């Protein structure tokens, strides 16, 4: 049986107390909410934090009103019709029923980047003499690369980026609210601009017509190998991509093109082309990377056509295999 390493467990009841613990422990501490990302990583010894700081009991993180606490579970998001559809569709396609009952929106936004050379047991990684992201010197995906190319695999972030969400970060020394876009770096190791002493406490999510299309092999379990989010902001479609880089990102070139345009077939096709040119999948996830890149324009097309109001249920049935949210 895969087992966790030894750790010290702390369960602060207030945000201030949690922030104090992080201030004292620094990088030795890890926050745990749902645990569905952290605990597998700990079992595989990708991480061995000395202290686990549970945020389960902190009331601010459980807020589920106009602001969304970071500790709200993905299942709760799916079942909250007031939230924009794109976010709910993204949450509904994360992992499995069980993991959505456990995993939180904050956890999904902070999801560790993933790579087939990294998400392996200690013994496997030892056999390749480790990799850039953890304990090694080489990126095995791109051996000439100085940068880790592990892939951002969050479903909810692209959906929230398209919507223009903001997040609040709290530490013992203060707090700040930033655009979600500014939470991420395009670096597989240093992928978050959250400081180790900061806690992601809540999100503000603007409402807008929106949707999310996820490419994965199976109808459940799998992380995205492509995520396309679209939202209608001030009359213009806005696209965000996930799982094609070390960060989720707004597709600026496509979005500039889309601004002020009606979603004609021609516009959709050109937006798909522009967005696809920005997709940089690597050979570190499921399915053929060239194919993943090739189909990104088609997925952008699905998202924009659905946003336009086309009936995409049949395509959904083929791709998603169920009606998410």
């Amino acid at each position, binding site marked *: 049986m895969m087992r966790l390493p030894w750790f010290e467990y702390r369960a602060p009841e207030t945000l201030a107390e949690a922030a104090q613990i992080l201030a004292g422990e620094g990088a030795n501490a890890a926050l745990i909410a749902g645990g569905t990302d952290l605990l597998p990583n700990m079992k595989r010894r990708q991480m061995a934090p000395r202290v686990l700081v549970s945020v389960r009991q902190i009331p601010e993180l459980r807020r589920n009103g106009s602001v969304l606490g970071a500790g709200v579970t993905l299942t709760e998001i799916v079942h909250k019709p007031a939230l924009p559809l794109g976010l709910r569709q993204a949450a509904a396609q994360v992992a499995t029923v069980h993991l959505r009952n456990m995993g939180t929106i904050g956890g999904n936004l902070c999801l560790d980047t993933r790579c087939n050379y990294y998400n392996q047991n200690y013994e496997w990684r030892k056999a390749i003499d480790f990799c850039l992201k953890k304990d090694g010197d080489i990126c095995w995906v791109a051996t000439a690369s100085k940068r880790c190319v592990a892939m951002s695999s969050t479903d909810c972030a692209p959906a929230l980026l398209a919507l223009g969400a903001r997040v609040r970060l709290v530490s013992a020394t203060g707090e700040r609210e930033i655009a979600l876009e500014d939470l991420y770096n395009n670096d597989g190791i240093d992928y978050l601009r959250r400081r180790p002493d900061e806690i992601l406490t809540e999100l503000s999510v603007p409402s807008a017509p929106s949707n999310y299309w996820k490419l994965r*092999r*199976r109808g459940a379990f799998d992380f995205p190998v492509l995520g396309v989010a679209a939202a209608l902001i001030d009359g213009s479609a806005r696209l965000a991509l996930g799982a094609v880089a070390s960060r989720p990102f707004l597709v600026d070139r496509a979005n500039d093109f889309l601004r002020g345009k009606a979603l004609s077939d021609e516009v959709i096709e050109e937006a798909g082309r522009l967005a696809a040119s920005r997709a940089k999948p690597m050979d570190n996830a499921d399915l053929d990377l060239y*194919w993943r890149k090739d189909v990104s324009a088609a997925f952008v097309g699905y998202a924009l056509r659905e946003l336009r109001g086309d009936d995409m249920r049949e395509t959904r049935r083929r791709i998603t295999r169920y009606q998410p949210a």
Partner: protein
Amino acid sequence: MKVIGKPRRRVDGRAKVTGLTRFADDVVLPRMLHMKMLRSPHPHALIESIDVSRAAAYAGVHLVLTGKDFPASFGILPITQDEYPLAPEHVRYIGDPVAAVVARDEQTACEALELIEVRYQPLDTISSPEEALAKPEPRLHAYSERGNIHRLQAFQFGDADAAIAQSDYVFEDLFFYEGNTHLPIEQHACVAALDADGKLTLWSSTQVPHYVHRALARVLQMPASQIRVIATPNGGGFGGKCDVCNHEMVAGKAAMMLGRPVKICLTREEVFYMHRGRHPVLMKFRTGVSKDGKLTGMHLQTLVDGGAYGSYGVASTFYTGALQTVTYELPRYQFEAARVFTNKPPCGPKRGHGTPQPRFGQEIQLDKIAERLGKDPAELRLGMLVKPNSLTANWLKIGSIGLEQCIRTVVERSDWKQRFRKMGPGRGLGLACGSYLCGAGLPIYWNKMPQSGVQMLLDRSGQITVFCGATEIGQGSDDVLAAIVAEVLGVDPQEVRCITGDTGITPVDLGSYSSRVTVMMGNAAIHAAEKLKAMLAEAAAEELEVVPDRLQFANGHVSFDARSLTFAEAVVLAEVKFGTLGAVGSYSPPRAPGRYKGAGVGPSPAYSYSACVVEAEVDAATGWIRIPKIWIAHDIGRTINPVLARGQVEGSVYMGLSEALMEEQVFRRLPAKLSRALVHKFPSLLEYKSITSLDMPEVDTVLIEDPDPNCPFGAKEVGQGPLLPVMPAVANAIYDAVGVRIDELPITPDKVMRALELKAAGKPARVGPEHFPAVPYPAPIVVPPPWEGGDGKEAKRDDAAAVV
């Protein structure tokens, strides 16, 4: 019949839904210790030294073992005893075990493993069959036939090449079937302990307790009578628990040395290294066809990637050719095969054992043949079916064959005639057939004893106890045993207590593999139960004053017209008359007619048949594949319990579809300039893809009953055969949908898209292997087929020339 053929709750159903079924890892004993194994991080290396001193001194550690503690090798086949419980000097794949720690708990054992220092001298990595053919050195095994070629096989049953050359049409196709693994959700586990008498007991999730029993005696160098192996119900097997495993040997040794129970449960990653799964096979089919759609000859070559050890490999390799003859009439057949060693976890038997790979090739090639001849693929097959009660070119004896009805059934139910080639762009139907053994004709080690034994006890309460070495792996072998006994004795199956898979108290049955259990155990059970029935009838007949033959055994009573005894009353009378009531039954398969060297693989008491139609939807823009529905008909001979039989069929369809679309056990060779590593690409349940409930189409299942006289109540196998037609039917359906041939598995959307792009560019719309390497196949063993005056023996060279 009162029991056979009636849908019922299986006899072990309650245990399975209450969590009370005790799997190996659920066995907990007082003072039990926990074991972990240290595994090689190198794909190929020599061990220079192992220092266990720090691990042995670690608090909580009770024992550290290395290869030095195991002088004897083992292996499932007598001719390939090439594994050691812990590698003494040579490691051959990443994951090959080199040391073991036994400690107070698993956590401590894991910590101590990190303190073992092993110095390796790395060797060059042999990563593929091509490399194995090209590089005889470094050699994985000294005993191999030639360099890194483990085994070469070649047979000629009539002059196939000449027949093909004279044919109206010749088809030559290459196919590749990627390796995949069983993926039982239960990880292998075992517990070894000394009993009160100082004898060793091993509880293990194994499909083959008898073979584990023999291997333990060999490895531990102690009498088999001092060892008891109990096969706990398996949480899925599919062939993955058919081999004798390193951890079973090491746990047994540790328990013997410590005098305390020792448990090990493999992690999921370790299960991928244990493997013994489907061999990757490259195939070349050269087939002659006459204008009227008959096969004139086939020349099949296979190249089999065996991984690092022998396992069942010699048999698996034979199976890539042995069953090509049992479905369609094939007058002349040449078969050449090679299995090579590579630095990967060993391959072995998975559901269908060696036959799904050539079945995939053959059934796609038939689809191509039908198209070229302008025939309907179903009609083409119907025109060439093997005749019942016939001999094949390679001297296999065919009994019953319900394949015609299988084909007609799926054709009708899928509305094939109205829809095939007529569904419009992106949608299609594909058809394929298959056939499989109902038990291998020969045991794994040469002997003339029965292959299955059943012992029964009746006591005066009316209690019926049946003992058999057969192993419950989820397929329902206990239910088959109870049902057959209950049918003979006229009681409810729930009244029968089954005690199975325990070498300490049950008669030998060779295990749950090769779809042998229903036929072999079933026949042995009938044999035993009929003896007891005769005794009961004789005693009851005296009481009821009728002749024994007239008595009915049904509904828990022994009766003639209105005269009736309860079953328990009859038992009491019989016990008075005969003393304590017991009986044994045994079964040996009929002797096969083939007499040539290699004739041992292929014979079976009977063959099952299946036909399958798959519907596919393919998105031409992305290559995305959706399978909305599958129709399958399986010639089961006779259904024992329709609920379980249907489950076996649907489970086979599921596994076949999963193999067709996504499953692959593949490895990543790191850049050779930087590393020798050859790692399993993703040894996890997340990244080894298997289909979920959302990916599974509706399956329309029909059981065709054509009872076979060699089988108990006519019942043939159902656990493996229905898998076989699924993969080629998927490939054929995709061709019908978008006109591209994917001649390799798995069929993924990127391959479909690549083929569509080739098609758009006016090139051959096919993705598959392009090249078959030169393999030094030996001169074939020449065996004239029955219709060329042969006697089943190898022809002397001169005779062979005469035959030609």
